[in-house]
């Protein structure tokens, strides 16, 4: 049995029939940390809202914890934990009151499932009498995660949990997710940050409501042709233009202070490219072979 299984799931919005989710299929194994990676507007939140029974799909079917998202929505709601992208707890209740409220709603107590949230809650404890609205961004996320976990859900849905959170808190957050996975909770997480993708067991790259690729992060990276180079030189803009015009180059794009260059498959060495660029009067060039990141894969898939 899969923790989450979507088959041809579709969603169309409004009178203009904007396709937000276009026949998306994927499955999350039990105890797996599955990432939906894609830019803003890719349809990640719509998929989440359909799977968490907040939105009815316009096509296809899906199951969560083996239960149909339309027929068994009541039962699913007891078994899933959902943390929306926007902070949605009661800002005028305190940390403890929020947690207590959600525990009681699910017919449990904080004590009963304290072991699940312990690591996170110890950081929140000093602020337990503070109103949730007055917490910092990272603390809010931690509280939201606690509230989503307090009833020991089988599947956890985290919609962009690290958007707007500082890098340190982001790192901590992902470590928490790894620990939760060890407790046997299946996690579906969405993020626009490519660097977080590598931390998932399996990722789906999504764009324009369509899944471009589903695999483990390492397999996605391995599928990338190995001839990726980082190129650096003065006047990056003209350099990038000249590189893209070179017949040996498949694609070149800016990537931080470097330009990433994918050479055509038969070209295994950058020497020919260098010679080409020197001929075009570029000097002080620096080029090195690099291991592709998820972001490189994503950019290549988008083309």
């Amino acid at each position, binding site marked *: 049995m899969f923790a989450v299984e979507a088959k041809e799931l579709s969603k169309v919005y409004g009178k203009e029939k904007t396709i937000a989710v276009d026949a998306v299929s994927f499955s999350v194994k039990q105890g797996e940390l599955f990432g939906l990676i894609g830019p803003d507007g890719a349809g990640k939140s719509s998929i989440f809202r359909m799977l968490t*029974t907040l939105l009815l799909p316009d096509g296809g079917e899906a199951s969560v914890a083996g239960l149909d998202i339309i027929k068994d929505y009541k039962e699913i709601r007891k078994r899933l934990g*959902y943390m929306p992208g926007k902070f*949605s707890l*009661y800002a*005028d209740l305190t940390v403890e009151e929020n947690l207590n409220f959600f525990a009681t*709603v699910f017919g449990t107590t904080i004590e009963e499932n304290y072991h699940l949230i312990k690591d996170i809650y110890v950081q929140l404890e000093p602020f337990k009498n503070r109103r949730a609205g007055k917490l910092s961004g990272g603390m809010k996320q931690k509280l939201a995660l606690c509230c989503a976990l307090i009833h020991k859900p089988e599947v956890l849905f985290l919609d962009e949990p690290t958007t707007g959170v500082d890098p340190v808190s982001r790192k901590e957050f992902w470590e928490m997710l790894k620990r939760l996975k060890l407790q046997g909770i299946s996690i579906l997480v969405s993020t626009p940050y490519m660097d977080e993708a590598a931390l998932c067991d399996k990722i789906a790259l999504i764009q324009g409501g369509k899944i471009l690729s589903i695999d483990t992060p390492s397999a996605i990276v391995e599928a990338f042709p190995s001839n990726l180079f980082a190129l650096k030189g003065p006047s990056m803009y003209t350099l990038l233009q000249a590189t893209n015009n070179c017949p040996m180059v498949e694609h070149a794009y800016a990537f931080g202070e470097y330009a990433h260059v994918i050479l055509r498959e038969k070209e295994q060495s950058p020497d020919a490219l260098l010679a080409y660029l020197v001929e075009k009067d570029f000097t002080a060039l620096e080029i090195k072979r690099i291991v592709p990141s998820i972001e490189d894969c994503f950019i290549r898939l988008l083309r």
Partner: protein
Amino acid sequence: MRTIRLLLEKEFRQIFRNKSILALILVMPTMQLIILPLAANYEVKNINLAVVDNDHSTSSAQMVNKIVASGYFKLCASPATFEQGMELIELDKADLILEIPAGFERNITREGSEKVFLAVNAINGVKAGLGGTYLSTIIKNYNQDILLKWAQASKIPAAPQINITASNWFNPSLNYNFFMVPGILAILVTMVGGFLTALNIVKEKELGTIEQINVTPIKKVHFILGKLIPFWILGNIVFTIGLLVSYFIYGIVPVGNLALMYAFVIAYLPAVLGFGLLVSTFCETQQQAMFIMFFFMMIFMLMGGLFTPIESMPKWAQMVAQFNPVTYLIKVMRMIVLKGSGFRDVLPHFFTIILFGVVLNILAILNYRKTS
């Protein structure tokens, strides 16, 4: 049951933490009940009167004295000509001009009749209409006094006339407060019930907290009850505060049964709560809810018989008033407070208002979707 208790606990915590809402609930009815009845008074007083006396006789002076002594008029000027009087009206210094012709006293004594001219500034319709009527009545009385005086003097039996003696039932001193306070109280109860419910639910939508609730096993019905019950209780509290204010400030003691009044408010509140709930299902933001509620509150107030009697409205407006729940509360409040109506008298209104509650709540629940 456990879920509802939990939701109520949460709701009350939030209400008691929101100081401005709490102030609104406690201070608003008190302040409004103190201020509004004093301002919302139909009695027109201090009408500025300009008298153009072309006669300067004892009789004309007597008549003017009588007018000013009535208390409704303030003699603001005595211009020499009517044109000067008109100027005062144009400057908004005078509301009425009374022109007494030259030879007023002579004509009245010799010929037994004389005409005076009355010009009314009709920009403020109520003031003009009532002022004109008051003045005519006073002059008529004066006229009668003269007739009587002569009748005695000449020992001729006076012309037969009908004397009218009016007695004001249920409000003998025609105290407007007795009439306005129950009406304003009805509006306050409606405001707290309707406004707060609508805004509260829409707030959960706006902040996204409703999403978090929707993924929990909380049932639709529980959520709605968790929202309605607190405001139903608050509505009753506001009503109690209002009754206390009207007793201590205006000395209004309901003639009828207090328990009957509470029973009606208890039956009435679900109707406005349901209305607030219905509005909230159509709105995404508190701003939208606020404007929609404001639109309806204006209609409820102006077409509910608070200021103007429903019977004098055009037919279509009377139809609208029939579908206005506030109409019934205002009516019943006045019936019980002033007239002392009993259960039998208000029974039809009970049925109507319960029907309102049932229909509005059913509509609201049908329109409230947990999954879109």
